[in-house]
């Protein structure tokens, strides 16, 4: 997926999510995108530049909880 304009910590987290077999989708507007698990759960991260580290931490937490559901990329 495209990662243009995203904070590097968010880009790293997205890359790890994709490696874990989760799907990353970008949006336009207030929400930069979401990470989706095959189990149906998703996490949306908003394009707030104030706290990108917290956003990345949330993605890592989502990966930890859903890694076992991820399909092989």
């Amino acid at each position, binding site marked *: 997926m495209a990662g243009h304009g995203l904070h590097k910590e968010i880009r790293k987290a997205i890359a790890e999510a994709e490696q874990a077999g989760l799907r990353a989708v970008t949006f336009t507007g207030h929400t930069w995108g979401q990470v989706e698990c095959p189990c*149906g759960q*998703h996490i949306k991260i*908003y394009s707030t530049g104030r706290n990108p580290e*917290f956003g990345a931490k949330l993605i890592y937490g989502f990966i930890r909880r859903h890694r076992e559901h991820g399909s092989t990329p």
Partner: protein
Amino acid sequence: MMYEFTLVLDREPTGAELEALAAAGLDPVGAEGPRPALAHLAIDADSLPAAIITAVREIEWLGIAITGVASADLVSLKDIAARTRRSYESVRKLAVGQRGPGGFPAPLSTGQWALYSWAEVSAWLARHYPATAAAVTSYDREIAAADHLIRARHILPAPADRADLAQLLTA
């Protein structure tokens, strides 16, 4: 100070509702769904309770109920083994009193799956096995307690009932 926490909601906010929250100055960093529906927040406030109250008021104003504060406090014996790097069997024996000084915290749940409070278990470990006890910060304890309070608030919708029960906190 910036307080980071996650609220459990009864449903996912819509895009329009998220815009309304942002307009009110409450900008969630992330939202998770559909079940559980979670709002991940970072709020600048004087205290954790003040930050949670701000978020609860703004979100419930939209007609979304807050049912809890997400916490990693509820743990199984397997979780405790992983967090303390002990074997499952060693932790199980501590829990049933076959090993160690006894007095292991009682599980919060009954039935087939026993779940424990990590805040309680880690405090017990810190007393008896300081080398293996993983640190639980006061922030973790406050989050775990806030979760119980928000759940109680959700169970008791009438303000009078809530006020009555609130006396238990300072009894």
